[in-house]
């Protein structure tokens, strides 16, 4: 177990290195120059420009820039934001818990919808409840996320006035108000994930229901409730967890739009703002952190396999 985790972590080293090179070079290949941004539109003063270049190390060869950047990051220094002049790590660490909260809440919403929907659809395969669940799931996949979010805002905050339309309150300050602010973005993001998950859980349940062990369970005299709720569900959850892991990475991506719509102060909005400001060091930092989180989530999923599926040996 420990050996497996260590090996996986070791395997991550080259992956992350390649990633860092990509992140680094990507931003140096796109048009637009951070110095221009700093100088302001229309101004040009070669002396100031040269001074700025030197200050940010942009005058040195790219490999040297990369090496400096990388070693700094390894020592925890992601640099300073060109715009706000604050340390990037601090900016990211401030925002990251908010995004994580939103992602987790969305995952809960997604499971709360897709688990019962998928199971019912599978049990009533090719009958009315199945068609109903699948139609809703298809709609969920087809409807653009941001549009659905706006609809929710219109209904629940503009029209009914039940929930705030945007903003963020820390749960540490006021838990209930925080939850109220969380609901709409979480539902927006969670329903998109739920649509896919419902289809997956349905397919997985149908597959498992035809397995030999289900026949054995029936032959023993077990009731359908135990068969579905214990025997089948435990098997069906194994592939489902993989997909949840993959989609969790997707949740972070989806967070960009949702965070903008709901003015949610997360990583996604930080990234968008950074792009608008051409805040190169900040973009690099955000992208790198997002990539690391993605890789880490996948590692956690693989390790959690062991607990779900006794057949998987991790060594």
């Amino acid at each position: 177990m420990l050996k497996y985790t260590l090996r996986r972590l070791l395997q991550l080293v080259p992956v992350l290195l390649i990633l860092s090179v990509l992140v680094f070079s990507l931003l140096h290949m796109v048009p637009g120059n951070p110095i221009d941004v700093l100088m302001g539109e229309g101004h040009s003063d070669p002396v100031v420009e040269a001074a700025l270049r030197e200050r940010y190390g942009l005058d040195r060869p790219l490999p040297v820039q990369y090496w400096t950047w990388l070693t700094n990051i390894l020592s925890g220094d992601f640099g300073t934001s060109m715009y706000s002049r604050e340390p990037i790590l601090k900016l990211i660490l401030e925002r990251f818990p908010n995004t994580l909260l939103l992602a987790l809440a969305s995952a809960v919403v997604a499971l709360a919808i897709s688990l019962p929907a998928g199971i019912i659809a599978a049990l009533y395969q090719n009958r009315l409840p199945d068609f109903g669940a699948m139609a809703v799931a298809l709609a969920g996949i087809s409807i653009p996320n941001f549009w659905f979010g706006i609809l929710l805002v219109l209904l629940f905050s503009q029209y009914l006035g039940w929930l705030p339309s945007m903003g963020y309150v820390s749960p540490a300050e006021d838990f209930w108000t925080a939850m109220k602010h969380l609901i709409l973005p979480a539902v927006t993001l969670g329903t998109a994930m739920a649509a896919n998950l419902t289809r997956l859980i349905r397919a997985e349940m149908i597959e498992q229901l035809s397995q030999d062990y289900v026949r054995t369970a029936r032959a023993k005299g077990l009731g359908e409730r135990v068969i579905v709720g214990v025997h089948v569900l435990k098997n069906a959850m194994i592939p489902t967890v993989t997909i949840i892991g993959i989609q969790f990475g997707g949740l972070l991506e989806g967070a960009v739009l949702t965070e903008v719509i709901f003015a949610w102060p997360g990583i996604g909005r930080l990234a968008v703002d950074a792009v608008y400001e051409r805040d190169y060091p900040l973009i690099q930092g955000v992208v790198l952190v997002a990539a690391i989180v993605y890789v880490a989530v996948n590692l956690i999923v693989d390790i959690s396999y062991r607990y779900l599926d006794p057949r998987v040996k991790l060594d």
Partner: protein
Amino acid sequence: MSDATSDTPLLRVAGLSQRFAVSRDIFGRPSQWLEAVDRVDLELAAGETLGIVGESGCGKSTLARTILHLHRPSAGKVIFDGVDLGSAGPARLRQMRRRMQIVMQDPYSALNPRRTIGSSIADGVTGGDRRAKVRALLEKVGLSAGDAGRYPNEFSGGQRQRICIARALGPDPDLLIADEAVSALDVSVQAQILNLLAGLRRDFGLSFLFISHNLAVVRAFCDRVAVMYLGRIVETGPTEAVFQDPRHPYTRALISAVPIPQPGRRRERRRLLAGDVPSPLDPPSGCRFRTRCPHADEGCARTAPVLERLGDARQVACLRLGTLERGPVWAAPVSQAEARPC
């Protein structure tokens, strides 16, 4: 077509081993091996049929694939018609492989469902009028020439196995490897396919490597037999000699475990082996059979027995051979007439 004379065998397998890495360490180097085939020696003369029997995990199917060089052997040689396949170049290997065809267990997955059986068979046919040859092959295996345009799903399991045989005959092979080729078939159909194979052997002088877990079928079909256990051959010899007087304790147990289709004989000779075949990942030291052998002593854990030649063209790998019982495993021989009511 074959250069083999009577004293050079068509196929010679010497010291053939095949192992697979089943787990790797932190740097991706193999840390655990599965020895599927361990130093196997075989010879097969032109026109001869050699049966390979054994239980699951004994390595018989891996042996077939390694002989065909579908896997590169870990050690040892396969010499087919005088050519060492291990040192042959790709073109030469391909050319030799065409002369060794394989028919497998599952006739359902062996055929491409989207192609007509005629085009599947035509793949292997070379030169001349391919369509005429396909029609001739279909008739040879007991189907009709008109079936060439039909699809696999229109045929029963037995018919599909006939199609697979026709396909294998396309390149005019010298050696047919039948890997559990009749195991998935119903008994009534199994007999048809065995008769078909026997006819091909007679008409074309084909050699057979007949791999099966079904001992009764092997006794009915093979000239010689080799018994495998956990990757090693434990006994080999002429089929009737082995069945009438099995010498290795495993051979004896294996033969006596087969249920006999005659109620009066039930249980009279049963020698139950304890336990299951050990995992090939962790085979016992010394003689691999010793953990289940009723005759094993300390010496069997230390020394791995090698095949020793007995008088009657037979070889047995057992350290305790001299002290063991022998003779038929069934107490009372039964006459043919009594045994076969029909």
